[in-house]
Protein backbone atom coordinates (compact mmCIF):
# COMPACT_ATOMS: atom_id res chain seq x y z
CA UNK A 1 0.00 0.00 0.00
CA UNK A 2 1.16 3.46 -0.88
CA UNK A 3 0.29 4.98 2.50
CA UNK A 4 2.74 2.78 4.37
CA UNK A 5 5.64 4.46 2.64
CA UNK A 6 7.28 7.20 4.68
CA UNK A 7 10.12 9.63 4.18
CA UNK A 8 12.78 10.08 6.82
CA UNK A 9 14.63 13.40 6.78
CA UNK A 10 17.61 13.64 9.07
CA UNK A 11 18.96 16.89 10.55
CA UNK A 12 21.98 17.57 12.68
CA UNK A 13 20.91 20.79 14.35
CA UNK A 14 17.80 21.64 16.34
CA UNK A 15 17.54 25.17 14.95
CA UNK A 16 17.65 23.85 11.39
CA UNK A 17 15.05 21.28 12.38
CA UNK A 18 12.77 23.96 13.81
CA UNK A 19 12.85 26.06 10.66
CA UNK A 20 12.35 22.90 8.57
CA UNK A 21 9.27 22.02 10.60
CA UNK A 22 7.89 25.48 10.03
CA UNK A 23 8.49 25.24 6.27
CA UNK A 24 6.91 21.79 6.03
CA UNK A 25 3.90 22.91 8.05
CA UNK A 26 3.56 26.02 5.90
CA UNK A 27 3.30 23.72 2.83
CA UNK A 28 0.49 21.86 4.61
CA UNK A 29 2.19 18.50 4.92
CA UNK A 30 1.37 16.33 7.89
CA UNK A 31 4.38 15.42 10.02
CA UNK A 32 3.93 11.92 11.43
CA UNK A 33 6.58 12.07 14.10
CA UNK A 34 9.89 13.68 15.01
CA UNK A 35 12.62 11.83 16.91
CA UNK A 36 15.11 13.96 18.83
CA UNK A 37 17.95 13.16 21.23
CA UNK A 38 16.69 15.80 23.67
CA UNK A 39 13.51 17.82 24.15
CA UNK A 40 13.49 20.67 21.62
CA UNK A 41 11.89 23.79 23.06
CA UNK A 42 8.78 24.86 21.15
CA UNK A 43 8.77 21.86 18.80
CA UNK A 44 5.30 20.75 19.88
CA UNK A 45 3.86 24.16 19.07
CA UNK A 46 5.65 24.30 15.69
CA UNK A 47 4.32 20.84 14.81
CA UNK A 48 0.83 21.91 15.78
CA UNK A 49 0.40 19.17 18.37
CA UNK A 50 -2.58 19.45 20.69
CA UNK A 51 -1.59 20.67 24.16
CA UNK A 52 -0.79 17.90 26.62
CA UNK A 53 -3.50 16.75 28.99
CA UNK A 54 -0.93 15.43 31.44
CA UNK A 55 -1.46 18.45 33.73
CA UNK A 56 -5.16 17.61 34.03
CA UNK A 57 -4.37 14.04 35.03
CA UNK A 58 -1.84 15.34 37.56
CA UNK A 59 -4.53 17.51 39.12
CA UNK A 60 -6.91 14.55 39.33
CA UNK A 61 -4.24 12.30 40.83
CA UNK A 62 -3.51 15.01 43.38
CA UNK A 63 -7.19 15.09 44.33
CA UNK A 64 -7.15 11.30 44.69
CA UNK A 65 -4.06 11.53 46.93
CA UNK A 66 -5.71 14.19 49.08
CA UNK A 67 -8.82 12.05 49.45
CA UNK A 68 -6.76 8.97 50.32
CA UNK A 69 -4.87 10.95 52.97
CA UNK A 70 -8.03 12.33 54.55
CA UNK A 71 -9.80 8.97 54.59
CA UNK A 72 -6.74 7.15 55.85
CA UNK A 73 -5.94 9.58 58.67
CA UNK A 74 -9.58 9.75 59.66
CA UNK A 75 -9.71 5.98 59.93
CA UNK A 76 -6.37 5.54 61.69
CA UNK A 77 -6.37 8.49 64.07
CA UNK A 78 -10.05 9.19 64.71
CA UNK A 79 -12.15 6.08 64.05
CA UNK A 80 -10.14 2.94 64.55
CA UNK A 81 -8.00 4.00 67.50
CA UNK A 82 -8.95 7.54 68.60
CA UNK A 83 -5.83 9.53 69.43
CA UNK A 84 -5.32 12.40 71.82
CA UNK A 85 -3.43 14.80 69.59
CA UNK A 86 -1.32 17.45 71.32
CA UNK A 87 -3.35 17.23 74.54
CA UNK A 88 -6.55 18.01 72.68
CA UNK A 89 -8.71 14.89 73.00
CA UNK A 90 -11.50 16.12 70.75
CA UNK A 91 -11.48 13.05 68.50
CA UNK A 92 -12.66 15.22 65.65
CA UNK A 93 -10.92 15.27 62.29
CA UNK A 94 -11.64 18.93 61.70
CA UNK A 95 -10.37 20.09 65.08
CA UNK A 96 -7.17 18.12 64.65
CA UNK A 97 -6.76 19.11 61.02
CA UNK A 98 -3.44 20.97 61.43
CA UNK A 99 -1.80 17.73 62.56
CA UNK A 100 -2.93 16.01 59.36
CA UNK A 101 -2.03 18.75 56.91
CA UNK A 102 1.58 17.57 56.34
CA UNK A 103 0.33 14.07 55.52
CA UNK A 104 -2.39 15.45 53.26
CA UNK A 105 0.22 17.54 51.48
CA UNK A 106 2.73 14.71 51.09
CA UNK A 107 0.24 12.19 49.77
CA UNK A 108 -1.17 14.74 47.33
CA UNK A 109 2.32 15.31 45.96
CA UNK A 110 3.18 11.61 46.04
CA UNK A 111 0.10 10.56 44.08
CA UNK A 112 0.32 13.42 41.61
CA UNK A 113 4.02 12.88 40.90
CA UNK A 114 4.18 9.10 40.67
CA UNK A 115 0.94 8.54 38.82
CA UNK A 116 1.77 11.37 36.43
CA UNK A 117 5.11 9.75 35.56
CA UNK A 118 3.45 6.37 35.04
CA UNK A 119 0.77 7.99 32.88
CA UNK A 120 3.43 9.75 30.88
CA UNK A 121 5.25 6.47 30.18
CA UNK A 122 2.05 4.68 29.19
CA UNK A 123 0.86 7.55 27.01
CA UNK A 124 4.26 7.59 25.31
CA UNK A 125 3.86 3.82 24.84
CA UNK A 126 6.94 3.04 26.88
CA UNK A 127 6.67 0.04 29.11
CA UNK A 128 9.09 -2.70 30.18
CA UNK A 129 10.36 -4.99 27.38
CA UNK A 130 8.87 -2.72 24.77
CA UNK A 131 10.73 -2.81 21.46
CA UNK A 132 11.94 0.70 20.62
CA UNK A 133 9.96 2.48 17.90
CA UNK A 134 12.93 4.61 17.14
CA UNK A 135 13.70 4.18 13.41
CA UNK A 136 17.32 5.23 13.58
CA UNK A 137 19.67 4.80 16.54
CA UNK A 138 21.47 8.05 15.70
CA UNK A 139 18.47 10.01 17.01
CA UNK A 140 19.54 8.95 20.49
CA UNK A 141 22.87 10.63 19.96
CA UNK A 142 23.11 13.79 17.86
CA UNK A 143 20.68 13.49 14.94
CA UNK A 144 17.10 14.63 14.49
CA UNK A 145 14.66 12.66 12.34
CA UNK A 146 11.44 13.90 10.79
CA UNK A 147 8.98 11.35 9.48
CA UNK A 148 6.41 12.30 6.85
CA UNK A 149 3.95 9.94 5.15
CA UNK A 150 4.10 9.81 1.36
CA UNK A 151 0.92 10.18 -0.67
CA UNK A 152 2.09 10.10 -4.30
CA UNK A 153 4.30 13.11 -3.66
CA UNK A 154 7.68 11.52 -3.15
CA UNK A 155 9.69 13.82 -5.40
CA UNK A 156 7.96 16.96 -4.21
CA UNK A 157 8.64 16.09 -0.59
CA UNK A 158 12.23 15.10 -1.27
CA UNK A 159 13.09 18.37 -2.92
CA UNK A 160 11.27 20.36 -0.24
CA UNK A 161 13.13 18.58 2.55
CA UNK A 162 16.44 18.98 0.77
CA UNK A 163 15.86 22.73 0.66
CA UNK A 164 15.24 22.82 4.40
CA UNK A 165 18.73 21.55 5.13
CA UNK A 166 18.24 17.82 5.69
CA UNK A 167 21.58 16.02 5.65
CA UNK A 168 20.05 12.71 4.61
CA UNK A 169 16.71 11.67 3.11
CA UNK A 170 15.53 8.07 3.08
CA UNK A 171 12.33 6.54 1.73
CA UNK A 172 11.32 3.53 3.79
CA UNK A 173 8.45 1.08 3.91
CA UNK A 174 6.89 1.44 7.28
CA UNK A 175 6.28 -1.85 8.99
CA UNK A 176 2.82 -1.39 10.45
CA UNK A 177 3.21 -4.42 12.68
CA UNK A 178 5.69 -2.56 14.80
CA UNK A 179 2.83 -0.82 16.59
Amino acid at each position, binding site marked *: MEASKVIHAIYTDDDVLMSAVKTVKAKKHHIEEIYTPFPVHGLDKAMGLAPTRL*AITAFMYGCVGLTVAITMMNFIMIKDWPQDIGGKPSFSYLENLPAFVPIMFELTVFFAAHLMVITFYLRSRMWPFKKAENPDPRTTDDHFLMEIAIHNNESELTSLLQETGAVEINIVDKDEDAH
Partner: protein
Amino acid sequence: MEYKISNRLRMGAIIMMVLGLIGVAYGFIDSHHWNEGNIDQYIKAENSHGSHGDTHATEAHGDEHAEAGHAVAKNDDHHGEEAHGGLTHHEEHALHQIHNRPYAALYVGAFFFFMIALGVLAFYAIQYAAQAGWSPVLFRVMEGITSYVLPGGLIVLAIAFAADSHLFVWLKEGVTEVGHENYDKLVAGKSGWLNKTGFFIRGLIFLGGWSLYRYFSRKFSIAQDNASDNKNFKKNFRISAAFLVFYIYTESMMSWDWIMSVDPHWFSTLFGWYVFASMFVSGITVIAMISIYLKSKGLLEFVNDSHIHDLAKFMFGISIFWTYLWFSQFMLIWYSNIPEEVTYFVTRIEHYKLPFFGMLAMNFIFPLLLLMNSDYKRINWFVIMAGIVILCGHYLDVFNWIMPATVVDRWFIGMPEIGAVLLFGGLFLFIVFTALGKAPLLAKQNPFTEESKHFHY
Protein backbone atom coordinates in the same frame (compact mmCIF):
# COMPACT_ATOMS: atom_id res chain seq x y z
CA MET B 1 8.73 54.73 25.59
CA GLU B 2 8.79 57.77 27.75
CA TYR B 3 6.05 57.83 30.28
CA LYS B 4 4.55 60.79 32.08
CA ILE B 5 2.05 60.38 34.85
CA SER B 6 -1.29 61.28 33.32
CA ASN B 7 -3.34 64.09 34.80
CA ARG B 8 -6.17 61.69 35.43
CA LEU B 9 -3.97 59.36 37.44
CA ARG B 10 -2.45 62.25 39.36
CA MET B 11 -5.88 63.65 40.15
CA GLY B 12 -7.11 60.20 41.14
CA ALA B 13 -4.17 59.73 43.50
CA ILE B 14 -4.71 63.17 45.05
CA ILE B 15 -8.42 62.53 45.51
CA MET B 16 -7.59 59.20 47.16
CA MET B 17 -5.21 60.95 49.52
CA VAL B 18 -7.74 63.63 50.42
CA LEU B 19 -10.53 61.12 51.01
CA GLY B 20 -8.10 58.98 52.97
CA LEU B 21 -7.07 61.93 55.09
CA ILE B 22 -10.71 62.64 55.87
CA GLY B 23 -11.23 59.02 56.88
CA VAL B 24 -8.13 59.03 59.08
CA ALA B 25 -9.09 62.34 60.69
CA TYR B 26 -12.59 61.03 61.31
CA GLY B 27 -11.07 57.97 62.98
CA PHE B 28 -9.08 60.09 65.40
CA ILE B 29 -11.92 62.48 66.21
CA ASP B 30 -14.38 59.63 66.61
CA SER B 31 -12.14 57.70 68.97
CA HIS B 32 -11.72 60.73 71.22
CA HIS B 33 -15.45 60.99 71.49
CA TRP B 34 -15.13 58.32 74.18
CA ASN B 35 -13.25 59.27 77.30
CA GLU B 36 -12.97 58.37 80.94
CA GLY B 37 -16.22 60.19 81.65
CA ASN B 38 -18.50 58.32 79.29
CA ILE B 39 -16.85 54.96 78.73
CA ASP B 40 -19.29 53.25 81.08
CA GLN B 41 -22.10 54.24 78.69
CA TYR B 42 -20.17 52.71 75.83
CA ILE B 43 -19.83 49.43 77.70
CA LYS B 44 -23.49 49.53 78.67
CA ALA B 45 -24.56 50.11 75.08
CA GLU B 46 -22.26 47.36 73.94
CA ASN B 47 -23.61 44.87 76.44
CA SER B 48 -27.24 45.64 75.62
CA HIS B 49 -26.58 44.94 71.94
CA GLY B 50 -28.09 41.65 70.88
CA SER B 51 -25.11 40.71 68.77
CA HIS B 52 -22.77 41.38 71.63
CA GLY B 53 -24.69 39.23 74.08
CA ASP B 54 -21.65 37.13 74.80
CA THR B 55 -19.10 39.90 74.52
CA HIS B 56 -18.51 40.04 78.18
CA ALA B 57 -17.73 36.37 78.43
CA THR B 58 -15.28 36.39 75.52
CA GLU B 59 -13.92 39.72 76.64
CA ALA B 60 -13.05 38.40 80.03
CA HIS B 61 -11.54 35.41 78.34
CA GLY B 62 -9.50 37.55 76.00
CA ASP B 63 -8.26 39.71 78.83
CA GLU B 64 -7.26 36.69 80.74
CA HIS B 65 -5.13 35.58 77.84
CA ALA B 66 -3.66 38.97 77.22
CA GLU B 67 -2.89 39.25 80.87
CA ALA B 68 -1.61 35.73 81.40
CA GLY B 69 1.97 36.88 81.07
CA HIS B 70 1.36 40.04 83.06
CA ALA B 71 -0.17 38.27 85.99
CA VAL B 72 2.70 35.82 86.16
CA ALA B 73 5.24 38.58 85.82
CA LYS B 74 3.73 41.02 88.26
CA ASN B 75 2.69 38.63 90.96
CA ASP B 76 0.01 41.08 92.00
CA ASP B 77 -3.32 40.75 90.35
CA HIS B 78 -5.16 43.80 89.14
CA HIS B 79 -8.17 41.87 87.97
CA GLY B 80 -11.49 43.36 88.89
CA GLU B 81 -9.76 45.97 90.96
CA GLU B 82 -10.58 49.64 90.61
CA ALA B 83 -7.76 51.19 88.63
CA HIS B 84 -7.36 54.72 87.22
CA GLY B 85 -9.86 57.40 88.05
CA GLY B 86 -12.56 55.03 89.19
CA LEU B 87 -12.57 53.02 85.95
CA THR B 88 -12.91 49.30 86.15
CA HIS B 89 -10.25 47.22 84.50
CA HIS B 90 -12.65 46.33 81.74
CA GLU B 91 -13.54 49.96 81.05
CA GLU B 92 -9.92 50.99 81.02
CA HIS B 93 -9.10 48.29 78.49
CA ALA B 94 -12.01 49.23 76.28
CA LEU B 95 -10.96 52.86 76.35
CA HIS B 96 -7.39 51.99 75.45
CA GLN B 97 -8.52 49.84 72.58
CA ILE B 98 -10.83 52.52 71.23
CA HIS B 99 -8.02 55.07 71.36
CA ASN B 100 -5.50 52.67 69.81
CA ARG B 101 -7.62 51.89 66.79
CA PRO B 102 -6.96 54.96 64.60
CA TYR B 103 -3.21 54.61 65.18
CA ALA B 104 -3.28 50.91 64.43
CA ALA B 105 -5.39 51.45 61.31
CA LEU B 106 -2.96 54.08 60.06
CA TYR B 107 0.02 51.87 60.81
CA VAL B 108 -1.47 48.86 59.00
CA GLY B 109 -2.14 50.91 55.87
CA ALA B 110 1.28 52.56 55.94
CA PHE B 111 3.14 49.32 56.50
CA PHE B 112 1.19 47.49 53.80
CA PHE B 113 2.27 49.90 51.05
CA PHE B 114 5.79 50.20 52.40
CA MET B 115 6.05 46.42 52.42
CA ILE B 116 5.12 46.26 48.73
CA ALA B 117 7.96 48.61 47.81
CA LEU B 118 10.46 46.77 49.99
CA GLY B 119 9.41 43.40 48.55
CA VAL B 120 9.99 44.75 45.05
CA LEU B 121 13.41 46.05 46.08
CA ALA B 122 14.41 42.53 47.19
CA PHE B 123 13.03 41.04 43.98
CA TYR B 124 14.95 43.59 41.94
CA ALA B 125 18.20 42.85 43.76
CA ILE B 126 17.70 39.15 43.19
CA GLN B 127 17.31 39.74 39.44
CA TYR B 128 20.65 41.54 39.39
CA ALA B 129 22.46 39.12 41.66
CA ALA B 130 21.19 36.14 39.67
CA GLN B 131 21.95 37.93 36.37
CA ALA B 132 18.48 36.95 35.28
CA GLY B 133 17.92 37.12 31.55
CA TRP B 134 14.15 37.27 31.48
CA SER B 135 13.46 40.31 33.63
CA PRO B 136 15.53 43.37 32.56
CA VAL B 137 12.60 44.73 30.53
CA LEU B 138 10.75 45.06 33.83
CA PHE B 139 13.58 46.85 35.69
CA ARG B 140 12.20 50.35 35.22
CA VAL B 141 8.81 49.29 36.54
CA MET B 142 10.53 47.82 39.61
CA GLU B 143 12.66 50.93 40.06
CA GLY B 144 9.51 53.02 39.94
CA ILE B 145 7.91 50.98 42.70
CA THR B 146 11.00 51.00 44.91
CA SER B 147 10.98 54.80 44.89
CA TYR B 148 8.38 54.41 47.64
CA VAL B 149 10.79 52.59 50.00
CA LEU B 150 12.24 55.72 51.59
CA PRO B 151 9.09 57.85 51.97
CA GLY B 152 7.02 54.81 52.93
CA GLY B 153 9.54 53.68 55.52
CA LEU B 154 9.85 57.14 57.03
CA ILE B 155 6.08 57.33 57.30
CA VAL B 156 5.93 53.99 59.12
CA LEU B 157 8.61 55.16 61.56
CA ALA B 158 6.86 58.50 62.04
CA ILE B 159 3.59 56.77 62.84
CA ALA B 160 5.39 54.45 65.25
CA PHE B 161 6.90 57.53 66.91
CA ALA B 162 3.59 59.35 67.16
CA ALA B 163 1.58 56.33 68.24
CA ASP B 164 4.08 55.37 70.93
CA SER B 165 2.39 53.11 73.48
CA HIS B 166 -0.85 53.12 71.48
CA LEU B 167 0.88 50.54 69.31
CA PHE B 168 3.79 49.31 71.39
CA VAL B 169 2.80 48.46 74.94
CA TRP B 170 6.46 48.10 75.85
CA LEU B 171 6.72 51.88 75.50
CA LYS B 172 4.29 52.40 78.39
CA GLU B 173 5.60 54.35 81.29
CA GLY B 174 7.22 52.27 83.99
CA VAL B 175 7.14 48.97 82.13
CA THR B 176 10.73 48.31 83.12
CA GLU B 177 10.54 49.89 86.57
CA VAL B 178 10.31 47.37 89.40
CA GLY B 179 7.38 48.23 91.60
CA HIS B 180 5.63 50.42 89.06
CA GLU B 181 2.04 49.42 88.40
CA ASN B 182 2.87 48.90 84.69
CA TYR B 183 5.96 46.83 85.51
CA ASP B 184 6.26 43.81 83.26
CA LYS B 185 9.05 41.41 84.05
CA LEU B 186 9.11 39.81 80.61
CA VAL B 187 9.31 43.12 78.78
CA ALA B 188 11.87 44.40 81.26
CA GLY B 189 14.01 41.40 80.41
CA LYS B 190 13.89 42.36 76.75
CA SER B 191 14.50 46.06 77.30
CA GLY B 192 18.09 45.75 76.08
CA TRP B 193 16.59 45.39 72.61
CA LEU B 194 13.10 46.79 73.03
CA ASN B 195 13.65 50.40 73.96
CA LYS B 196 12.64 53.56 72.22
CA THR B 197 16.12 54.79 71.32
CA GLY B 198 17.19 51.39 69.99
CA PHE B 199 13.99 51.00 68.01
CA PHE B 200 14.42 54.24 66.10
CA ILE B 201 18.19 53.95 65.64
CA ARG B 202 17.72 50.47 64.21
CA GLY B 203 14.81 51.66 62.10
CA LEU B 204 16.92 54.42 60.58
CA ILE B 205 19.82 52.03 59.95
CA PHE B 206 17.55 49.55 58.16
CA LEU B 207 15.91 52.24 56.13
CA GLY B 208 19.23 53.95 55.44
CA GLY B 209 20.76 50.76 54.10
CA TRP B 210 17.81 49.92 51.89
CA SER B 211 17.56 53.47 50.55
CA LEU B 212 21.28 53.65 49.84
CA TYR B 213 21.04 50.50 47.78
CA ARG B 214 17.95 51.85 46.04
CA TYR B 215 19.73 55.13 45.31
CA PHE B 216 22.88 53.60 43.88
CA SER B 217 21.27 50.78 41.94
CA ARG B 218 18.94 53.26 40.30
CA LYS B 219 21.87 55.58 39.57
CA PHE B 220 23.94 52.81 37.95
CA SER B 221 20.92 51.51 36.08
CA ILE B 222 20.32 54.94 34.52
CA ALA B 223 24.02 55.43 33.85
CA GLN B 224 24.11 52.08 32.05
CA ASP B 225 21.57 53.40 29.52
CA ASN B 226 24.16 55.55 27.81
CA ALA B 227 27.26 53.56 28.59
CA SER B 228 29.44 51.81 26.03
CA ASP B 229 30.63 49.10 28.42
CA ASN B 230 29.13 47.06 31.25
CA LYS B 231 30.88 48.78 34.16
CA ASN B 232 27.67 50.08 35.69
CA PHE B 233 25.99 46.75 35.31
CA LYS B 234 28.85 45.01 37.11
CA LYS B 235 28.71 47.54 39.93
CA ASN B 236 25.01 46.89 40.22
CA PHE B 237 25.63 43.16 40.36
CA ARG B 238 28.06 43.60 43.23
CA ILE B 239 25.98 45.98 45.31
CA SER B 240 22.90 43.83 44.76
CA ALA B 241 24.61 40.79 46.19
CA ALA B 242 25.82 42.82 49.16
CA PHE B 243 22.39 44.35 49.63
CA LEU B 244 20.73 40.94 49.75
CA VAL B 245 22.96 39.89 52.64
CA PHE B 246 22.18 43.13 54.48
CA TYR B 247 18.49 42.84 53.64
CA ILE B 248 17.93 39.32 54.87
CA TYR B 249 19.24 40.25 58.32
CA THR B 250 17.65 43.66 58.57
CA GLU B 251 14.30 42.57 57.18
CA SER B 252 14.09 39.95 59.89
CA MET B 253 15.03 42.43 62.61
CA MET B 254 12.63 44.97 61.17
CA SER B 255 9.82 42.43 61.45
CA TRP B 256 10.62 41.85 65.14
CA ASP B 257 10.74 45.56 65.83
CA TRP B 258 7.94 46.92 63.74
CA ILE B 259 5.48 44.06 63.91
CA MET B 260 6.25 41.28 66.36
CA SER B 261 6.92 43.71 69.21
CA VAL B 262 3.26 44.78 69.31
CA ASP B 263 2.84 41.48 71.16
CA PRO B 264 5.99 41.82 73.28
CA HIS B 265 5.45 38.62 75.26
CA TRP B 266 5.13 36.48 72.20
CA PHE B 267 7.81 35.50 69.76
CA SER B 268 8.27 33.27 66.78
CA THR B 269 11.61 32.43 65.23
CA LEU B 270 10.43 32.28 61.64
CA PHE B 271 8.41 35.48 61.85
CA GLY B 272 10.92 37.40 59.72
CA TRP B 273 10.66 34.88 56.91
CA TYR B 274 6.92 34.87 57.11
CA VAL B 275 6.80 38.67 56.83
CA PHE B 276 9.27 38.43 53.97
CA ALA B 277 7.03 36.02 52.06
CA SER B 278 4.14 38.42 52.50
CA MET B 279 6.06 41.44 51.21
CA PHE B 280 7.61 39.44 48.39
CA VAL B 281 4.34 38.14 46.99
CA SER B 282 2.64 41.54 47.35
CA GLY B 283 5.57 43.20 45.62
CA ILE B 284 5.61 40.78 42.70
CA THR B 285 1.85 41.16 42.33
CA VAL B 286 2.21 44.91 42.08
CA ILE B 287 5.00 44.56 39.48
CA ALA B 288 2.65 42.42 37.40
CA MET B 289 -0.26 44.82 37.82
CA ILE B 290 1.71 47.95 36.94
CA SER B 291 3.36 46.23 33.97
CA ILE B 292 -0.04 45.16 32.66
CA TYR B 293 -1.37 48.68 33.19
CA LEU B 294 1.51 50.27 31.28
CA LYS B 295 1.25 47.61 28.59
CA SER B 296 -2.42 48.41 28.14
CA LYS B 297 -1.35 52.01 27.47
CA GLY B 298 0.93 50.70 24.74
CA LEU B 299 4.06 51.73 26.63
CA LEU B 300 5.74 48.41 27.31
CA GLU B 301 5.55 46.77 23.89
CA PHE B 302 8.72 44.81 24.72
CA VAL B 303 6.98 43.09 27.63
CA ASN B 304 5.23 40.04 26.24
CA ASP B 305 2.85 37.49 27.71
CA SER B 306 5.73 35.28 28.76
CA HIS B 307 6.97 37.97 31.15
CA ILE B 308 3.50 38.25 32.63
CA HIS B 309 3.36 34.46 32.75
CA ASP B 310 6.60 34.36 34.74
CA LEU B 311 5.40 37.02 37.17
CA ALA B 312 2.17 35.10 37.64
CA LYS B 313 4.18 31.94 38.30
CA PHE B 314 5.99 33.85 41.03
CA MET B 315 2.67 35.06 42.42
CA PHE B 316 1.48 31.46 42.51
CA GLY B 317 4.71 30.04 43.90
CA ILE B 318 5.31 32.67 46.56
CA SER B 319 1.67 32.45 47.67
CA ILE B 320 2.30 28.79 48.40
CA PHE B 321 5.61 29.65 50.04
CA TRP B 322 3.76 32.15 52.24
CA THR B 323 1.25 29.47 53.20
CA TYR B 324 4.05 27.07 53.99
CA LEU B 325 5.65 29.56 56.39
CA TRP B 326 2.34 30.64 57.88
CA PHE B 327 1.42 27.05 58.50
CA SER B 328 4.83 26.09 59.85
CA GLN B 329 4.45 28.82 62.43
CA PHE B 330 0.85 27.99 63.21
CA MET B 331 1.10 24.21 63.42
CA LEU B 332 3.97 24.03 65.87
CA ILE B 333 2.39 26.57 68.18
CA TRP B 334 -1.02 24.91 67.93
CA TYR B 335 0.47 21.46 68.53
CA SER B 336 2.61 22.28 71.53
CA ASN B 337 -0.14 24.43 73.04
CA ILE B 338 2.18 26.32 75.40
CA PRO B 339 0.12 29.09 77.03
CA GLU B 340 2.45 32.01 76.33
CA GLU B 341 2.78 31.02 72.68
CA VAL B 342 -0.70 29.89 71.87
CA THR B 343 -2.46 33.05 73.13
CA TYR B 344 -1.39 34.63 69.87
CA PHE B 345 -3.59 32.30 67.87
CA VAL B 346 -6.30 32.02 70.51
CA THR B 347 -6.89 35.77 70.28
CA ARG B 348 -6.99 35.60 66.50
CA ILE B 349 -9.27 32.62 66.20
CA GLU B 350 -11.63 33.90 68.90
CA HIS B 351 -11.93 37.50 67.79
CA TYR B 352 -10.68 37.54 64.20
CA LYS B 353 -12.28 34.46 62.70
CA LEU B 354 -13.26 36.17 59.48
CA PRO B 355 -10.03 38.06 58.69
CA PHE B 356 -7.91 35.18 59.97
CA PHE B 357 -9.47 32.40 57.93
CA GLY B 358 -10.52 34.78 55.16
CA MET B 359 -6.88 35.72 54.70
CA LEU B 360 -5.96 32.04 54.37
CA ALA B 361 -8.55 31.58 51.65
CA MET B 362 -7.44 34.71 49.81
CA ASN B 363 -3.73 34.11 50.12
CA PHE B 364 -3.70 30.38 49.52
CA ILE B 365 -6.86 28.81 48.10
CA PHE B 366 -7.58 31.60 45.59
CA PRO B 367 -4.08 31.87 44.09
CA LEU B 368 -3.74 28.08 44.16
CA LEU B 369 -6.88 27.46 42.16
CA LEU B 370 -6.91 30.61 40.01
CA LEU B 371 -3.29 30.56 38.95
CA MET B 372 -2.72 26.82 38.68
CA ASN B 373 -3.63 26.63 35.01
CA SER B 374 -0.76 27.60 32.76
CA ASP B 375 -2.93 29.42 30.21
CA TYR B 376 -4.63 31.62 32.80
CA LYS B 377 -1.27 33.08 33.81
CA ARG B 378 -0.99 34.61 30.33
CA ILE B 379 -4.40 36.26 30.40
CA ASN B 380 -3.67 39.77 31.60
CA TRP B 381 -7.03 40.68 33.08
CA PHE B 382 -7.07 37.37 34.89
CA VAL B 383 -3.70 38.10 36.49
CA ILE B 384 -5.07 41.49 37.59
CA MET B 385 -8.10 39.88 39.22
CA ALA B 386 -5.98 37.27 41.01
CA GLY B 387 -3.62 40.09 42.02
CA ILE B 388 -6.43 42.07 43.62
CA VAL B 389 -7.41 39.05 45.71
CA ILE B 390 -3.78 38.50 46.74
CA LEU B 391 -3.29 42.16 47.69
CA CYS B 392 -6.49 42.25 49.74
CA GLY B 393 -5.41 39.03 51.40
CA HIS B 394 -2.06 40.44 52.36
CA TYR B 395 -3.63 43.63 53.64
CA LEU B 396 -5.64 41.37 55.95
CA ASP B 397 -2.41 39.61 56.83
CA VAL B 398 -0.91 42.89 58.08
CA PHE B 399 -4.23 43.64 59.78
CA ASN B 400 -3.95 40.35 61.66
CA TRP B 401 -0.43 41.18 62.75
CA ILE B 402 -1.23 44.53 64.31
CA MET B 403 -4.88 44.72 65.28
CA PRO B 404 -5.26 41.83 67.78
CA ALA B 405 -2.52 43.29 69.96
CA THR B 406 -3.85 46.84 69.87
CA VAL B 407 -7.64 46.77 69.67
CA VAL B 408 -8.33 43.10 70.55
CA ASP B 409 -11.99 42.47 69.75
CA ARG B 410 -12.85 46.07 68.92
CA TRP B 411 -11.81 45.77 65.30
CA PHE B 412 -13.72 46.71 62.22
CA ILE B 413 -12.74 47.60 58.69
CA GLY B 414 -14.40 50.98 58.70
CA MET B 415 -13.53 54.62 58.09
CA PRO B 416 -10.10 54.68 59.79
CA GLU B 417 -8.88 51.51 58.05
CA ILE B 418 -10.22 52.31 54.59
CA GLY B 419 -9.08 55.91 55.05
CA ALA B 420 -5.52 54.73 55.74
CA VAL B 421 -5.55 52.45 52.69
CA LEU B 422 -6.78 55.30 50.48
CA LEU B 423 -4.30 57.76 51.94
CA PHE B 424 -1.22 55.58 51.51
CA GLY B 425 -2.53 53.93 48.35
CA GLY B 426 -2.90 57.36 46.79
CA LEU B 427 0.53 58.41 47.97
CA PHE B 428 2.01 55.15 46.69
CA LEU B 429 0.46 55.61 43.23
CA PHE B 430 1.51 59.24 43.13
CA ILE B 431 5.15 58.59 44.04
CA VAL B 432 5.51 55.42 41.97
CA PHE B 433 4.01 56.79 38.78
CA THR B 434 5.87 60.06 39.11
CA ALA B 435 9.11 58.07 39.44
CA LEU B 436 8.14 55.94 36.42
CA GLY B 437 8.02 59.11 34.35
CA LYS B 438 11.57 60.12 35.26
CA ALA B 439 13.43 57.61 33.09
CA PRO B 440 12.87 55.69 29.85
CA LEU B 441 10.82 52.56 30.46
CA LEU B 442 13.44 50.30 28.92
CA ALA B 443 16.86 49.76 30.48
CA LYS B 444 18.22 49.64 26.96
CA GLN B 445 21.94 49.05 27.55
CA ASN B 446 21.60 46.36 30.16
CA PRO B 447 23.53 43.41 28.71
CA PHE B 448 20.52 41.14 29.21
CA THR B 449 17.91 43.43 27.71
CA GLU B 450 18.14 41.88 24.26
CA GLU B 451 17.68 38.42 25.75
CA SER B 452 14.83 39.65 27.87
CA LYS B 453 13.03 41.13 24.85
CA HIS B 454 13.08 37.76 23.15
CA PHE B 455 12.07 35.88 26.22
CA HIS B 456 9.46 33.28 25.51
CA TYR B 457 8.50 30.11 27.19
